[in-house]
């Protein structure tokens, strides 16, 4: 598995925004690193952020943009990547989606449209992955206890809200609530913001 590299637009003694200090520590603790082209005590300057994106793209082999608004920071990085001759990958989006304007434009410019992980591998010349990594990525239906199965099934592959689960299964709401908690602490499902449930 890889590690995280954070590229700062300020000196490494000035983590910005401040609440990301914990994140910075976590990155280092987990074997990643934090780099910056500025002196250690350099102040936070807004104009530095787009500039440091050229370092992000330069140290990468390829750039994958999941979602990007029109003229967002990720588009800047990807465009710099184009100039540096890097490979740029994008997920396609609905043309109505605000968060897809940037990525769709990048695809127009020549970024590779990505549907699955093999699309990236073929471009980077990776032939075969180690078996243990493949196992980890493979989607498999977990073997949930019998009493939770119906609710687990109703969650489907995209985030689902509790009323929909209730509607699909016809189980009383109190029972659904209760079983969702059980599924969550047994780590079969996860809750996203806005009380949307997804399978782990």
């Amino acid at each position: 598995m890889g590690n995280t590299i954070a590229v700062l637009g300020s000196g490494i003694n000035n983590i910005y925004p401040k609440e990301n200090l914990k994140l910075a520590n976590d990155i280092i603790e987990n074997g990643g690193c934090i780099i910056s082209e500025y002196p250690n005590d350099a102040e936070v300057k807004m104009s530095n952020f787009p500039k440091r994106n050229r370092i992000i793209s330069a140290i990468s082999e390829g750039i994958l943009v999941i979602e990007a608004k029109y003229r967002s920071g990720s588009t800047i990085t990807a465009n710099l990547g184009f100039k540096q001759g890097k490979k740029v990958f994008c997920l396609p989006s609905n043309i109505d989606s605000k968060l897809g304007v940037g990525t769709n434009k990048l695809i127009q410019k020549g970024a590779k449209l990505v549907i699955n992980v093999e699309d990236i591998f073929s471009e980077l010349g990776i032939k075969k992955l180690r078996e243990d990594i493949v196992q980890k990525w493979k989607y498999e239906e977990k073997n949930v206890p019998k009493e939770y199965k119906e609710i687990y099934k109703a969650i489907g592959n995209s985030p689902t809200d509790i009323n929909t689960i209730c509607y699909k299964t016809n189980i009383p709401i109190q029972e659904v609530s209760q079983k969702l908690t059980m599924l969550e602490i047994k780590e079969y499902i996860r809750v996203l913001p806005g009380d949307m449930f997804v399978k782990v």
Partner: protein
Amino acid sequence: MLSIVKTISLFGTVGSIIEVQVDISSGIPTWEMVGMLDKSIQEAKERIKVALKNCRIKIPGKKISINLAPAEIKKEGTNFDLAIAVGVLQNLGIVQPENKDVLYIGEISYDGSIKAVNGILPMCLEAKRLGIKKVYIPYENLNEATFVKDLEILGVKTLQNLIEKNYFFILNKNPVIKEKELNIDMSEVFGQEKVKRALEISAAGEHSIILVGSPGVGKTMLAKRAITIYPELNYEEIIEVMKINSILGNIKENLKINRPFIEISPNITLNAFVGGGRYPKPGAVSIANLGILFMDEFPEFDRNKINLLKNILDTKFVKLDRVSGSAMYPSKFVLIAAMNPCPCGYYASNIKECVCSKNKIRNYLSKIGKAIIDRIDLQVNVKKVDYRFVSKNQIGEKSQDIKERVKQARKLQEERYKKEGILTNSELNSNQIKKYCALDKQTNEFVKELYIKMGLSVRSYNNILKVSRTIADLNYKENIDIQAIAEAVQYRCLEKLYKEGM
């Protein structure tokens, strides 16, 4: 010669007996009134003079001096008119003095008729408490006074009635109170099972609840229908509700009274919110007593009001301090608050994308302090209803059915807390929680696991226990079990929102 007649003065809901002392003696013809009187009582002089003249009663050309004792109490209102007039009439020998325990309440108009006044119900109740046996009140107020038992109440239409001893009595001492038809029902809401269940729990244990959701998902619609699943008011509760309405003069001829549902918006004035005025009148929090207070756009209420609300939720009454004393009004209501998850309203919604920056969301959430959030037991997300629910044409559960379950759960609580002097689970203090929300070993282990895995804050522990207690009551369980706890933790959405947003 001196004659003394009694009446009553209200401050808040507390009454004090006022003696009207009328003295008529020879001297320069004047009419003096003393005893810390407000403008409205000073004007009584003119009203009574003209009314007596129009009733063909001649006022002698003597010095008339009137004192309203005790003189240290500030007095306001037009309800003293009748007592003053009777005092004069007794002094002139036109009306015979009765024994001491009689009160006269009413406003007099120029033609000698007696007008209705506000606050008759609390006045009569207080009169009874203070040992009064007989009260004369305006005929128009007879209706609301029917609620007072063991007190002789006589209605008078005009001064002439009083002189001729031509009184009106209350015919039916057991008033039949009809509930107003509400014309709304929970079954009209499609889907939204989770919110409905949360409202049911809220009604059963009187838990405060906050609905978080994007504009147009039906927060207000749901809140308005919450009142339909509350149990009907009992006799004592009706009197409590009527008292406040009587002070405000809201009781008209028909005696239809419902559990209050009061909706307020952030631009409400402070006086209208908690009550106010020189002689303090009750505000929205007291009008909502024993019912629901619905606060829409909750984060837009200013700090001042939120802080007051915090105190009121703890104490269950409002105390309005004035130079002349402090008035207390009950304000035991269930709070239903509604808010958007972020300024644009679409954070984590299934309708459209949120355009708020993290900073904007943080500012928005920080407007509602943590202290008030701790007092809201149930926090639930309201999602947009899927069209499938509507097209399936599946009728939801009727309010009446939910109400039956709520009543049953309330009954269990009432029996359990007989000795504690409380009625519902939401009123439990931390000592009582230890006693009544005890968990067995297995459940305790489960709660520990929950806290670690779900990252709940320790502050919410008591809220979760109280809500679990109510869920157990709704499920006819004697003790809180794992199922109850597992359901209760699903109603902590605001806490999660805070964790993501801050």
